[in-house]
């Protein structure tokens, strides 16, 4: 007979181990990490800078996101976030089929622009079938058509001091006592000039639907969905992100998401 019995000491050790595991995973022991200003959290956030630099090193400036075939388009693009803006400005533009809508290009540029949807559609276009990866974990493949952002930036002639492209949107993402917050976001100029970064006005061979960001949305194919704002109306070239929102570079970034959404 194998001799196996738990001695009192073994039992106590086991009980202590078990209890400490429960205590550790214990509900709220690590909830301090959710505090955006916590020092430990700020150290952990440093890993995102490392990810950004290593991925830029590995992927280079112009490596392309995977493109798929028509056969991979098996469903409508799943919308997320705001899917029907109820802002009066947006609704009146929508009522006129966005004929009065303009894309403004402002900030650190030599020639500020104001472009209609038709003007954008008259520029050279790019169509790509790509996989949209949401930060939540799901993926959806769709075909996107739009004007490469690099062409728009070149038309406006970006000043050398510019470092980021900021997106200003028409949809209100948050209403609180301190007022309304419209969606905003930003990317660096490397991603802004990436060959697959387009200002999309078409999806799956049709005009971009409202739920997916009509009349214009951003596609940044090497990053997650929250880095691709919908309902775009102004692009601003800036040399720093501190002045916008709470200073982290975007609506979700100001609420704890990493500014770099490549992972």
């Amino acid at each position, binding site marked *: 007979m194998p*001799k196996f019995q738990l001695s009192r000491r*073994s039992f106590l050790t086991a009980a202590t181990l078990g209890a400490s595991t429960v205590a550790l995973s214990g509900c709220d022991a690590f909830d301090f990490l959710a505090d955006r200003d916590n020092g430990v959290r700020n150290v952990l956030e440093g890993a995102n800078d490392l990810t950004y630099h290593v991925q830029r090193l590995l992927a280079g400036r112009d*490596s392309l996101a*995977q493109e798929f075939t028509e056969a*991979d388009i098996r*469903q409508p693009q799943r919308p997320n976030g705001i899917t029907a803006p109820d802002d009066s400005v947006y609704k009146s533009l929508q009522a006129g089929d966005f004929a009065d809508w303009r894309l403004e290009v402002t900030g650190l540029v030599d020639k500020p622009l104001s472009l209609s949807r038709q003007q954008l559609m008259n520029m050279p276009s790019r169509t790509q079938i790509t996989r949209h*990866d949401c930060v939540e*974990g*799901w993926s959806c493949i769709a075909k996107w058509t739009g004007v490469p952002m690099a062409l728009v930036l070149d038309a406006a002639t970006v000043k050398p001091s510019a470092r980021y492209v900021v997106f200003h949107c028409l949809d209100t993402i948050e209403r609180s006592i301190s007022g309304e917050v419209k969606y905003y976001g930003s990317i660096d100029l490397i991603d802004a000039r990436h060959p697959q970064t387009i200002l999309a006005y078409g999806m799956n061979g049709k005009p971009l639907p409202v739920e997916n960001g009509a009349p214009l949305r951003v596609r940044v194919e090497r990053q997650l969905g929250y880095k691709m704002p919908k309902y775009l109306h102004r692009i601003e070239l800036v040399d720093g992100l501190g002045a916008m929102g709470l200073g982290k570079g975007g609506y979700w970034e100001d609420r*704890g998401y990493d500014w770099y959404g490549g992972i």
Partner: protein
Amino acid sequence: MESQARLVQQADDGSAPTSEGTLVYRQSGWTRLTHWIWAFSLFFLLLSGLQIFNAHPALYIGKQSGFAFSNDVLVIGAENSSTGPVGYTTILGNRFNTTGVLGVSGSTANPSARAFPAWATIPSGQDLATGRVVHFFFAWMLSATLLVWLGASLLNGHLRRDLTPRANDLRRLPKDIVDHARLKFHHSRDYNTLQKLAYGGVLFVLLPLMIITGLAMSPSMNAAVPFLADLLGGRQTARTIHFVAMALLVGFFIIHILMILAAGPINELRSIFTGWYRTDPPADENHEGSA
């Protein structure tokens, strides 16, 4: 030190060697240090990972998630019934009521609709942003530690001497399985066959698989190494494998702890804290028949 060890030995008479054996130096500083960094990292990776999973508690096979078609293999959800909220888990089309743990958890007075319960996630509340911050920090930590361990173990011979299975190991595998099943443990400096397979499986299969499937979910890595997601069957399959490997690691952890408890926790813990391990006395073999 020695007398302390003897005290421990006497008190712990359940399953450890019955008479005084020799203390041998079993675990190098590198092995002990990396072991504890992994233990610490995996704890945070698991609980932050479940937090991230909760943001979209479904797993799929393929390149994308089926919303207008069905390719899911696991869905955790909640719905209302006449008797109150019900949590369910659907695995490969088979639906189970998992109220209380998966889908719906918390107190009956204040039930919460979430896939994994608050006690299993960091932070306890729904907070994907913080889950990601914690997860990616410890992902780097785990990967770096794995590299340090690999370098050290190649140099100090741990890999060759202790982990590489030999012909002899295969020959005694059946006996080793029987011994483990009967909770009959031999305390020697060398790992037994099942230990070599378990540790090797974690270090050379599960942890690298975790890192590779994790990278395959990154859109930027998809641009750098597009074949990675394809090789794994698509991004959503990679995510599913990531989850299954997590479950296997949790399974390893549970068996690891049970084996430590059964083989003599004081001796086992001493070796992973100090490196010193008390082996069976040579005479022990003779008593085996009558034990």
